[in-house]
């Protein structure tokens, strides 16, 4: 069998074929393109903030606030939340389950289209009248905003629906498209993570889409539900954002668990324990929003209750971390560059998790809750958690996705630059936060303090690393085809089909052979 002609990438239909495709693998690649574009755009807005923090002249405050607003909106709602599920999730879920496609292929295409419509509307608002409400869109500021808020709101409405549809698709696919003989506890760990992420996306996607419309109605009426009660909006906002953004580590952790098992050629240690931990995290993610409201007008006793509840998240997080270590222990760990990204995830997600300890400590949390410290935690989730999991996943599954080999050394160097740079860029902001600088407002600190310069150097290194890594992957598509179907010797079903997989994924419908049999 000639894999190249059989590949899903071999079609001759051109752009129309891609545009109308309902194949989950093409949807995934298109999501990769669009989320990368949103990330790039968000990063460009981020550059204005860096320039301002280095003393850039001629940047008016309102312009900087607009850059900040779009930087955060794009990074959080169009990258942090959807990137891992829509790129890696769409590609891998059917393959891991032994299915030929998602259960609802038309809905996959709709997810992508709604995402793109959302992105286009948000970009359109940039042209027509950019908003400067901050990414959390406090309702009194929204009511008074002079920019085209309605465009942004409708954009986010479509993005929320896109999350929702992706979630539904994951759930139905897992329930109905598992290979014959594959029980729930025979699913690879990533499939479990995506299944649970499905519930999360359904819940927060639908709610987000609805409340953003209410917020727009408040703006149009000048008062409305959220105009009259700013705390109500804040509660809704964080009720959605806390699970979606702060627990974006859930699918990311699934990716890392899968990769660690694959590269060490071992079973996921404590498989059922990890599944249980992920279920617990899913539940706890909906009980944690009040921690983000500490010091923001929430009643002190309520804050204490939320902080006490959030201590419980430590247990599942620790169990998952333990499973990674136990899986690596006495493994046969591959020497490929993907190891660098797995390590980067451990460092960055580790920092994001321990930063939570400070914010759940009542007096420290009250002091730090609205500062750069809390804002930088979000940066650790975006640039540290979601991005390193995505990069790890792309480097691990790239041969499967494209049938091509990338240059290992370039990926290693890029990965190290990224890991070093991101910490050099973000740790100064943590220090500024503890010194009392308000969240996301480091750009306005009168310098030079040395910290902004250090962070600027860090960003330079981060961008060099990311350009190397992304350029390497992109260039590989013209490069050497991989001659191995299963370069890792991994045991999950996606490696049992040809590379890249054919349109229907498997020449013959596979049967589950039990989990992680090497």
């Amino acid at each position, binding site marked *: 069998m000639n894999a190249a002609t059989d590949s899903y990438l071999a079609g001759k239909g051109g752009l129309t074929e891609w545009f109308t495709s309902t194949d989950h693998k093409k949807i995934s690649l298109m999501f990769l393109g669009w989320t990368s574009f949103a990330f790039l755009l968000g990063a460009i807005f981020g550059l204005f903030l860096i320039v301002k923090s280095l003393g850039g002249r001629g940047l008016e405050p309102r312009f900087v606030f607009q850059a900040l607003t779009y930087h955060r909106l794009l990074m959080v709602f169009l990258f942090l939340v959807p990137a891992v599920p829509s790129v890696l999730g769409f590609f891998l879920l059917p393959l891991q389950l032994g299915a030929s496609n998602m259960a609802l292929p038309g809905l996959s295409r709709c997810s992508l289209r709604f995402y793109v419509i959302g992105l286009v509307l948000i970009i359109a608002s940039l042209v027509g009248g950019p908003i400067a409400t901050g990414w959390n869109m406090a309702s009194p500021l929204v009511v008074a905003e002079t920019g085209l808020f309605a465009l942004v709101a409708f954009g986010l409405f479509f993005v929320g629906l896109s999350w929702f549809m992706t979630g539904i698709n994951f759930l139905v696919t897992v329930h109905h498209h598992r290979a014959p003989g594959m029980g729930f506890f025979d699913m690879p760990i990533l499939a479990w993570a995506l299944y649970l992420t499905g519930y999360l996306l359904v819940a927060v996607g639908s709610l987000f889409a609805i409340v953003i419309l209410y917020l727009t109605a408040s703006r149009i009426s000048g008062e409305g539900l959220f105009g009259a009660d700013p*705390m109500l909006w804040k509660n809704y906002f964080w009720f959605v954002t806390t699970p979606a953004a702060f627990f974006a580590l859930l699918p990311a952790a699934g990716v890392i668990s899968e990769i660690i098992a694959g590269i060490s050629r071992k079973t996921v240690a404590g498989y059922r324990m990890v599944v249980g931990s992920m279920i617990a995290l899913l539940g706890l993610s909906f009980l944690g929003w009040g921690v983000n409201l500490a010091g923001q*007008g929430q009643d002190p006793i309520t804050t204490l209750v939320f902080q006490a509840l959030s201590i419980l998240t430590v247990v599942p997080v620790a169990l998952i971390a333990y499973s990674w270590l136990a899986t690596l222990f006495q493994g046969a760990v591959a020497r490929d560059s993907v190891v660098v990204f797995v390590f980067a995830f451990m460092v960055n997600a580790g*920092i994001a998790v321990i930063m939570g300890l400070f914010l759940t400590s009542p007096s420290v949390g009250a002091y730090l809750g*609205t500062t750069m410290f809390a804002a930088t935690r979000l940066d650790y989730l975006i640039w540290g958690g979601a991005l390193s999991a995505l990069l790890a996943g792309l480097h691990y599954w790239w041969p499967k996705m494209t049938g091509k080999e990338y240059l290992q050394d370039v990926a290693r160097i890029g990965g190290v630059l990224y890991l070093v740079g991101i910490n050099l860029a973000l740790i100064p902001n943590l220090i500024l936060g*503890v010194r009392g600088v308000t969240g996301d407002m480091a750009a306005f600190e009168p310098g030079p303090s040395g910290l902004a310069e250090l962070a600027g150097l860090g960003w330079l290194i981060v961008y060099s690393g990311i350009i190397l890594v992304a350029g390497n992957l992109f260039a590989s598509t013209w490069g050497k085809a991989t001659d191995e179907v299963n370069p890792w010797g991994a045991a999950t079903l996606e490696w049992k089909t040809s590379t890249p997989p054919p349109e229907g994924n498997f020449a013959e419908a596979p049967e589950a052979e039990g989990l992680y049999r090497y």
Partner: protein
Amino acid sequence: MIGSAILATWFPEAASTHAAGVDEPFYWIYIAAVLALFLFVGLGGTYLWIFRRQDRNQLGAVTGRLNPIFLGLWVLGALGLGIFAFVAGFPGFMDQNEAPYGAYGIDVTARQWGWDFTYPNGHVADTLHVAMGHPVHLTLNSEDVEHGLSIPAMRVNQAIVPDEQSEIWFEATEPGAYQLRGSIFDGDGFIDMNSALIVHEPADFVAWMDEVSDIFKGRTMPEVGELLYTRLGCMACHTTTGHKLVGPSFLDMYGFEFDTVEGKRITVDDAYIRESILDPNVSVIAGYQPVMTPFAGLVTDQEIEAITAWLKTLSSKGGTDEATAPEEN
């Protein structure tokens, strides 16, 4: 000491009694969290290196049951860390939430974009001045959108939500000037929320207060009168628009003639105004009830003169504009 070096790197100067309740938990959580991170990342990095594949076809060891002792210690350690972080920050949090009895009260109004700090004697300033060693109790209100007040050196940070009153208190321990910031983004002029906290020695604070509280300084008599109209609460019953409330409007009052409830005919002049402030219910204008509180002992003669001068500017019979209009200053 390593401890003080860590705190000095991270925190701004500590100048309030709250600092211990925030800095100490931060310090211990920092130590514990960094150790936990190094343990996890260290083990992860070590395993990634020492268990690297020796030949292409090598398989990993078969995963057995997880060691219950290690697993138990790991989870208990993590849970202990979480509980420790919560418990360590608890006393400082409770302390911040209950202002001591007898604290010096200052009303804070936040608006787009600036602050009004109103002292008990009615003085209003845009920077916050307090005396060292005395607890200060701030009552916070917003005029428009949501704001936040943060004074890092005092370790206080409080949101100000419209239509809701919030409170914080602190006691400064070191004199000096400190940053006072907006802690919640409140629109395009956000950076104008940057102000200052000035902590005085107690004696200096009294002197400062005497100095700035002289309302006649830098103001014309009518300006002082207008200020007193707000501060003394006259506006609750008297408008300046001709509209009647509990009491008559001040518009076109000075120099005009009125009938009193007793049927006497009086002219509103300096003497009548003085009497109406100090003992208001002696001759009440017809159509109104004798319900005004006497201000005897609450206003000085000079202040009554200022109010009179201001009332003249509101009246077409108040004299020439040149004589009574506020001077340029």
